[in-house]
C-alpha cells in the first residue's frame, strides 16, 4: 500500500516539476508570430500584387504555411518556386497559369499630360510609390515601384503603362545570346 502511495507521489512530483519546467519554457522562449511564415515571406518577391489571390505577400505566406500551393506567384517565377519547395519540403511544380505567367520586370509609367489627378492609382498602390494630389498630376517613383499592375485598372483615363525595365550595362547579365553583341576573346593562340 505504502509502495503504491510512494510511487504515485513520486510520479505526481515529477509531473509537477516537468509541468513547471515546460510552463516556464513556454513563457521564457515564446516565439512571436510564426517563424515559418516569416521565412516564406522573405522568399516571396514582395510585389504585393495579389496575383496569387491573397491581398499581399504576407497573407500568401500564411496560406502556404497552412498548406496552400507554392506555385501561385508569377512575379517570383521559377526561382521563388524552387526556393519555396526547398523550404517547405514539397515538390517544385511549374507556375500555375491561372494566376498569370512569368514576365519581364516592369514598372508603371504615367503619361503625365493625360493624368487628370483623380488619386485613384495612389489609393491602389500597395507600396506608396505614386506621388500626387487631387487635381494635380501624378507620377511614379520608379525606384519604389514593384511592377504589381494594381494601379492600371483603377485609372479612369487609362494613362498608366507598364514599361519593361531597360537593362543598363551595370545590370547586364553577360548573356550574349540575348543581346546581339561580340564575344570576349579570352583565348590566345601561341
Amino acid at each position, binding site marked *: 500500500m505504502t509502495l503504491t502511495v510512494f510511487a504515485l507521489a513520486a510520479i505526481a512530483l515529477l509531473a509537477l516539476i516537468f509541468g513547471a519546467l515546460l510552463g516556464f519554457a513556454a513563457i521564457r522562449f515564446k516565439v512571436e508570430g510564426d517563424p515559418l511564415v516569416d521565412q516564406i*515571406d522573405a522568399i*516571396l*518577391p*514582395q*510585389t*504585393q500584387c495579389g496575383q496569387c489571390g491573397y491581398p*499581399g*505577400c504576407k497573407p500568401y505566406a500564411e496560406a502556404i504555411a497552412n498548406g496552400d500551393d507554392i506555385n501561385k506567384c508569377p512575379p517570383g517565377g521559377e526561382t521563388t518556386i524552387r526556393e519555396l519547395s526547398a523550404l517547405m519540403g514539397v515538390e517544385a511544380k511549374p507556375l500555375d497559369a491561372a494566376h498569370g505567367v512569368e514576365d519581364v520586370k516592369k514598372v508603371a509609367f504615367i503619361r503625365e499630360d493625360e493624368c487628370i489627378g483623380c488619386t485613384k492609382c495612389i489609393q491602389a498602390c*500597395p*507600396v*506608396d*510609390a505614386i506621388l500626387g494630389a487631387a487635381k494635380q498630376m501624378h507620377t511614379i517613383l520608379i525606384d*519604389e515601384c*514593384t511592377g504589381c499592375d494594381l494601379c492600371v485598372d483603377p485609372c479612369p483615363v487609362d494613362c498608366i503603362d507598364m514599361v519593361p525595365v531597360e*537593362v*543598363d*550595362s551595370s*545590370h*547586364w*547579365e*553577360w*548573356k550574349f545570346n540575348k*543581346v*546581339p*553583341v*561580340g*564575344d*570576349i*576573346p*579570352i*583565348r*590566345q*593562340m*601561341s
Partner: protein
Amino acid sequence: MFANYDKIIERISLNQLWDFPGGVHPPQQKTLSNQSSIEYLQVEKTYYVPVKQHIGIEGKLLVCEGDKVLKGQALTTSEAPFSVPVHAPTSGAVTKITNHVSAHPSGIPELSVIIDADGQDTWIELDPVPDYAKTSKSELIERICDAGISGMGGAGFPTHIKTNNSKPLEFLIINGIECEPYISSDDRLMREHAWQIRQGIDILVHILQPKQVIVAVEDNKPEALETMSIACQQKINYQVVSVPTKYPAGGEKQLIQVLTSREVPANGLPIDVGCIMYNVATCYAIADAIVEGKPLIERVVTLTGEGFKSPKNVWARLGTPIQSLLTYGDYDQSQQSSPRFIMGGPMMGFTVTSMLTPIVKISNCILVPADNELPHPEDERACIRCSACSDVCPASLLPQQLFWYSKAKELEKAEEYNLFDCIECGACAYVCPSEIPLVHYYRQAKADIRNQKEEKEKSDKAKIRFEARKARLLKEKEQREEKHRLAAEARKASLSTDGGGTKDKIAAALARAKAKKEALAKQEALAEKEALAKQEALAKQAPHIADLAESEKTKAVSVSEVSTEVVASQTAQGASPAKDSPEDDAAANEETKEL
C-alpha cells in the same frame, strides 16, 4: 605597424622579390607597337563623350544641346563622392546629348555628350597650381577630382577616393607592369614622359606621405625601366623595381603580393595591408591636372595587331570613335575575313559592337587581330578535370568548381567558393584544353548574384513600405472611428445635461423648417393656379391657334418658376427677423445637421 617592413625594403633593394601563385606566359607581341613614339592625332570632326567612364555614379550634366564648349571645359560636375566629371575633348558645339553605344562588352547605349569640333581646338582658361607643396591636401584632392581622373589601368576607380586616405600607409606602388600581351601604351608613356610621371608621383607623395615609393616595371620593358630609374634617382625613398614577366603580375593584388608578400584580404583593399597603387598613366594625368591645370581629356591608346599596317601608340582624345583610330593605324581589311575589333588586350578585352564605340578613360588598346593571329574561340567541350586552370589561377581559387556551380546556377555555392575574388584575368580560360570560356561563366554568375542581391534589397524595401502603408491606413481608420465616437459621446452628453432646453430648440428648429416648407408649397400652388388661370384665359381668347397656346404654356411655366423663386427668397428674408435671436438659429441649424 605591419610586421615585415624592413625585410621588404631589404629584399626590394636586392631585387629579390616574392611570387604570386599561378600565372601564365602568353606570347608578348609588344614589339609590334612599341617601336615608334606616341603620335598626336588631328582633331576629329565628332566626339562621343560618355557621361560615365568610371566605377561609381555619373556626374550632373552642366551643358545643354546647342551650347558652345571649349577644350577642357567640364561637361558634368561631381556631386556625389563617387562621381567623376568628364570634359570636352576639343572646342566646338554640343550637338546632341543622347544615348550612344557604350565602351562596354554589352554595347548598351549610355548617355553621351556628342560634340562637333570647330577645328580651333581652343583651350579653356587653365588654372594650374603654382606650387603644390604649399597647397593643402584637400585642395589637391579636390583638383584631382575636378580634373576627372579615375584609375587608368583598367578598373576606373575614382582616384580622389583612393587618394583621400587616412589609414596608415607604408608603400605607394606605381604600377608600370602592363602585363597583358600586345599593349604598350604604358611602356611608351614611361619611355617618353618619365619626368612627368615622376612629378605625378611627387604630388601623390606630398598628399599621402608614404614611407616608401615602389615603381614596378616588368622586365620585358628595359627602356622604360631605365628612364624611370633616371627620373627617380634623386629621391632616396623611390625604388624602381624590375618585376619578372608573368601574366597577370599587373593585377593590383598580385603585384602587392610580388613586392611585399602581403596578401590583400578577400573583400579588402590594398590599404588594409599598408599599400596604395596607382597606374603610371594615372600619375601622368595627376601631374597634368595639378602642374598644368589640364583636365583628363586624352590618353595613350595602343593600336596593334596584324590587322593594322602600321601599329603604334597614339594620344587619343576621350570620345574618339574607334573608326578614326582604325584609319590612323592603316586598318588592313584583307587580314580579316569578318571585321573584329577588340577593345583592351587579348586576355581581358572585349569585341566592340560598333565602329562608333568611343575611347574612354580606361581604354588602353585597340587590338585588330588577323584571322590566324587570334582565332575565334572554338565550341567548348566537356571539362576533363585536368585542373590546369587551378594551377594557373593567380587568386588560388578552384576554377573547375566555380565553373560547375556557375553553369548550374548554384550561385550560393559559387559564392562560397569565393567567386568574387576572381579578378577575371582569363588565365584559366587561356590554358583550358577544352576551350571552355570560363571567365564568361564567372561574369554571368557574378552579374546574376549582384542582380539577385539588388532584387532582394528592393523587395525588402517594398515590404517595409507595404507594412508602413498598412499601419498608416489602420491608424487613419482608428482615428476616424475615435473621432466619430467622441462626437457621438459629446452629443449624448449635451443632450443629457441640458436636456429640456436643447430638445425645445430642436423642436423649434424643426417647426421652423416645416413652416418654411409649407410656405413654399403654398406659394408654388398659388403660382400654378395663376398660370392655369392665365392659360385658360388665353385659350378662350384664341382657341383656334393651338400652336400659339402651346408655346404660351411653356412660357407660363417658366414664368411661374421664376415667380416661385422670388417668393421663396422673400420668405427666407422675411422669416429671419421672426426668430428669437441669430445665435439660437445657428445653434438650431447645427443641431439639425448633427441629427
